[in-house]
């Protein structure tokens, strides 16, 4: 069943396109960052437009923008994936438990969810940033992950609540299956589309959140990401000064990566919906 | 006078896994003033046939062969926009399955009517209102319903409203597809009453009623056509189908009906072994032969043609064809 599903999956053009763009960009950045291993090194004259030596020009510190971009993509994707994983695990766990239990457990978990939802995450991050002078990729992922799970919990909860009324779940219950088995065999597989899509959406959201955090100075303190490049570009007033090769490429890459992820999620939706409805 | 005729209609679904021959060589004609019941069980193709009769054919469905004539006009050749403007709602109307759930929940009934009518003719708001009011009164529907939202009406009421709306422009033919399956028996009776009133008062001339419930057809149909696996296997008057069914499938269907009547009590409930075939790969010859206790050698190889036998009955069965062993 699974190999057949995967084969059918690849007949959707949107999926092929989006996956190609995303993986293509990622591969280029992985290879590129191996070649340009030290992007923060000063290698040329500052603020040079694109040339044969530096295809994307240099920034105000004379650093190769192509090197910065390639490394940046790699780190942004890493942060996106890690933050998504953290948020996904928390959101799905809370959503499933809350969806299955009625009464107090459900109310308490939803209360926590709602509180985290309305917390102004920027303020929290500013507070934490004030305390932690060193912020690496994992920390940034953690902060984003810990504040972006509520919508996942709610979405998963409502899916679980509707699934648990389906007769086949009652049949498993009457066969004496314990709750864990029912979750793993009956509930989660029948929400696979949801689970995939939420991860993809979380990832795209996390990459944008990283850019946002970085642009207000709360991002990475070491290393480079797309957000950090934009941060420097903005701090050094590159827009007004017309240094387009500094802010356009990273912005474009961010848009490209997140759009391909969104396209992937709609392709997954298209694939999963007719199948799950049919029979 | 023939209102609708279908000549050798074949409509297939072209799917990645194969071709589903949902309607495979149907010939039927409907006279003016007649209510035809189309009965059949899951997978028999009756809903596909109904869409084909209207000309509502969208990929993956394709009309492979045959033509459909409505009042002399060839529906099967018209394009969708012409059908939408001049035919649907005006000459023929379809109330599809679960139409009662198709009403926009955020619009009042009268607004829905305005939207529906605007496609065909330029009516003024007051014209629409008076037309709707008059029609509701004719059909014993509470005029107040015009100003309500769909969820404020009961299931039965919603269905009657949908039927009233689809016949506002007095189409000659009304086709209803399982209009009462989701309703309780009392609402069902009311909807059937409304359909009967439509015909008695001349608002519509003929009706095609598609269902799996033959007892319902008994109450309102003049003729009944039995479909099985994409084919029409028997077509006759209601009385003939009930008291003198010919095709073994028809006999099986009638015998499986459970109503609290002494006649049914006398013969016990029966069933037909097996299940309807997969139309991707239907059985050879007569499609019913795998479940028929009268199956002969010829049934495996040759498809029985639909032939006229005694009493104005059409049957597609080798037990009745004049050329046995051909």
């Amino acid at each position, binding site marked *: 069943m699974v190999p057949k599903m995967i084969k059918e999956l690849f007949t959707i053009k949107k999926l092929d396109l989006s996956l190609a763009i995303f993986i293509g960009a990622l591969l280029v950045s992985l290879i590129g960052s191996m070649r340009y291993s030290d992007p923060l090194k000063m290698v040329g004259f500052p603020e040079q437009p694109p040339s044969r030596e530096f295809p994307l020009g240099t920034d105000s510190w004379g650093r190769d923008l192509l090197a910065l971009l390639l490394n940046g993509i790699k780190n942004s994707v890493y942060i996106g994936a890690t933050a998504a994983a953290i948020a996904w695990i928390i959101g799905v766990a809370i959503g499933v438990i809350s969806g299955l239990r009625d009464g107090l457990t459900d109310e308490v978990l939803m209360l926590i969810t709602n509180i985290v939802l309305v917390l102004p995450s920027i303020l929290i991050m500013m507070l934490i940033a004030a305390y932690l002078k060193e912020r690496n990729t994992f920390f940034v992922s953690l902060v984003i992950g810990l504040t972006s799970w509520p919508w996942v919990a709610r979405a998963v909860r409502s899916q679980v609540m509707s699934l648990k009324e389906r007769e*086949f779940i009652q049949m498993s219950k009457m066969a004496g*299956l314990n709750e864990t088995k029912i979750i793993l065999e009956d509930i989660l597989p029948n929400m696979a589309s949801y689970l995939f899509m939420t991860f993809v959406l979380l990832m795209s959201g996390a990459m944008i959140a990283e850019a946002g955090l970085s642009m207000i100075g709360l991002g990475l303190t070491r290393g480079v990401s797309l957000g950090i490049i934009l941060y420097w570009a903005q701090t050094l007033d590159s827009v007004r000064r017309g240094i387009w090769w500094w802010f356009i490429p990273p912005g474009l890459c961010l848009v490209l990566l997140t759009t391909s992820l969104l396209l992937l999620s709609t392709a997954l939706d298209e694939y999963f919906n007719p199948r799950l409805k049919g029979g | 006078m023939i209102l609708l005729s279908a000549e050798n209609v074949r409509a297939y679904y072209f799917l990645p896994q194969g071709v589903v021959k949902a309607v495979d060589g149907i010939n039927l004609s409907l006279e003016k003033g007649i209510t035809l019941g189309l009965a059949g069980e899951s997978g028999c193709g009756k809903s596909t046939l109904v869409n084909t009769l209207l000309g509502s054919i969208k990929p993956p469905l394709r009309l492979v062969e045959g033509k459909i004539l409505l009042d002399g006009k060839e529906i099967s050749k018209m394009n969708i926009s012409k059908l939408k403007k001049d035919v649907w709602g005006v000459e023929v109307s379809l109330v599809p399955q679960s139409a009662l759930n198709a009403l926009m929940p955020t619009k009042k009934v009268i607004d829905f009517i305005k939207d529906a009518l605007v496609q065909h003719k330029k009516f003024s708001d007051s014209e629409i209102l008076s037309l709707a009011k008059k029609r509701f009164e004719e059909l014993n529907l509470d005029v107040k319903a015009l100003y309500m939202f769909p969820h404020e009406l009961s299931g039965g009421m919603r269905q009657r409203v949908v039927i009233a709306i689809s016949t506002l422009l007095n189409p000659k033919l009304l086709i209803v597809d399982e209009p009462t399956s989701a309703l309780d028996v009392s609402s069902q009776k009311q909807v059937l009453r409304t359909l009967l009133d439509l015909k008695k008062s001349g608002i519509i001339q003929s009706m095609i009623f598609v269902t799996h419930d033959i007892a319902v057809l008994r109450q309102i149909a003049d003729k009944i056509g039995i479909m099985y696996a994409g084919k029409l296997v028997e077509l006759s008057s209601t009385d003939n189908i009930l008291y003198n069914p010919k095709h073994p499938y028809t006999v099986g269907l009638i015998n499986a009906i459970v109503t609290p009547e002494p006649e049914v009590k006398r013969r016990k409930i029966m069933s037909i072994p097996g299940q309807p075939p997969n139309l991707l790969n239907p059985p050879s010859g007569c499609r019913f032969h795998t479940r028929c206790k009268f199956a002969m050698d010829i049934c495996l190889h040759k498809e029985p043609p639909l032939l006229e036998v005694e009493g104005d009955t059409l049957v597609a069965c080798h037990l009745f064809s004049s050329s046995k062993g051909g």
Partner: protein
Amino acid sequence: MSWLLLSVDNLTKIFTVGLLRKKEIVAVRDVSFQVDSGKFVSLVGESGSGKTTTAKMILKLIQPTSGKIFFEGKDVTMLNKYQDLKEYWSKVHGIFQDPYASFNPLQKVDRVLYQVFGLIKDQNVDRDKTVREALKEVGLNPEEVLGKYPHELSGGQRQRIMVARCYLIKPKLIVADEPVSMIDASTREGVIQLLSNLRDEYKTSVIFITHDLGLAYYVSDEMLIMYKGQVVERGSPDEVMDHPSSEYTKRLKADIPLLYRKWEGF
């Protein structure tokens, strides 16, 4: 000699909806009835009558708001320990209306059969052999059915598999909620016959829930008519059909489309 298998006393279920302004929906109100062993009892009602909620309470899938359920003389109303429930479900089992929804669409149909071996006392049975025998009992060819996914089988086949599941468990009581209303009329009797066989061979009782008055008339030993959560009529099928006392039953009877008679004015 038959004895009391199930006794339902004043069963009530009230659902509360809404967070701040709580609204109460009384789905089942004061329902009482008994089921002897080896008997077919029908709960007849239309949608909203409370029959499915009653079924779920007897199957211990929903907790009643008030009232008691006695099974084999024991009070099972408050049963909630995992082991106790497993024991209960080995004796009381359910068959539902929608033959598609009763299966996990992503798993082979074999699963609904093999998963009940956890309920059976004898752990040393040859599972494959027992499953194949059960399938044959319900008129299915194991080769045609095992290893398939739900969407590859017809509704009738799927319901038969559900009955085969009961053949494996051999419960004392089956609660069948509209078991044949979603399969073709021409194949219904086959499934009902299987339930009758269980009754004849193992003295299994069946609570048969349906909206089809005619069907209930033919299969039941006792009929109960439910309307808006209450039992409004009860008795043997002949009593209920020939001498209905409640207005609702009379109306229900009058609105059934008959095969050999036409309604007045039609």
